[in-house]
């Protein structure tokens, strides 16, 4: 009899997962360097939200949105080390949606949430490796979700 893989999230309840869904973050996330294994969870009624539930600690769960839901013109900027960690080829830019999934983490900000589009979570869809890619430059910046559902510049 095969063993069930179960994580008991205080927020999402009991989640049974199969190893094919597991994401590997070789560097963890900034501030959570030991959080290297996560599963993505989608709840149909809550789309387009994506939960990233840690498999290391039950009570760590991030909430994210695909960056193109926030900014349809978002362009990914990867550094050499990030590309290597994701095992992406050097000869072409990865296509968002086909090669990689880009998620913006929702951060509480006063009565709403903000997303730092300069620090997307990038997941290689071909091997489930993930890295939070932090760029220095004048990228898309931070945006905050307004009352009317529009994303407004926050920094």
């Amino acid at each position: 009899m095969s063993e069930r893989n179960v994580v008991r999230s205080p927020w999402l309840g009991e989640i049974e997962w199969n190893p094919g869904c597991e994401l590997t973050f070789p560097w963890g996330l900034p501030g959570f360097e030991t959080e290297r294994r996560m599963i993505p969870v989608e709840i149909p009624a809550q789309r387009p939200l994506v939960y990233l539930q840690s498999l290391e600690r039950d009570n760590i769960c991030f909430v994210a949105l695909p960056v193109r839901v926030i900014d349809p013109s978002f362009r990914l900027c990867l550094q050499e080390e990030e590309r290597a960690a994701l095992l992406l080829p050097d000869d072409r830019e990865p296509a968002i949606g086909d090669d990689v999934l880009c998620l913006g983490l929702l951060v509480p900000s006063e009565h709403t949430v903000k997303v730092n589009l300069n620090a997307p979570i990038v997941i290689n869809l071909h091997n489930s490796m993930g890295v939070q890619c932090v760029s220095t430059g004048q990228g898309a910046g931070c945006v905050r979700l307004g009352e009317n559902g529009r994303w407004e510049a926050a920094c």
Partner: protein
Amino acid sequence: MLVLRRRAGEAIVIGDDIEIEVTEISRTRVKLGVKAPRTICVMRRETVPVALDNRQAAVILGNHGVGEILRRIYAGQAVPPAKPFEEPRHVFQSPLKPPEERADK
């Protein structure tokens, strides 16, 4: 600030167990190798505020929930979904496969 000149292959040490080596110098960048105990957190400076944000992001469900977030997201859509929010009774894993692989399953 202490300023030191180093060439590729040379290093500096901090305390007893941290060593930073210049491994490569290009026209616009310097590549550094850091040897440090696993308990020492080493990160690029621009990552520090991201780490602070991530610590807040990790407790978003405990402190806020997602109801208000979803209400706002759907408020910005031309056609709101029929069911704007349901308590998460059924949890689905997303296999996150590329579309061409997903199609044959």
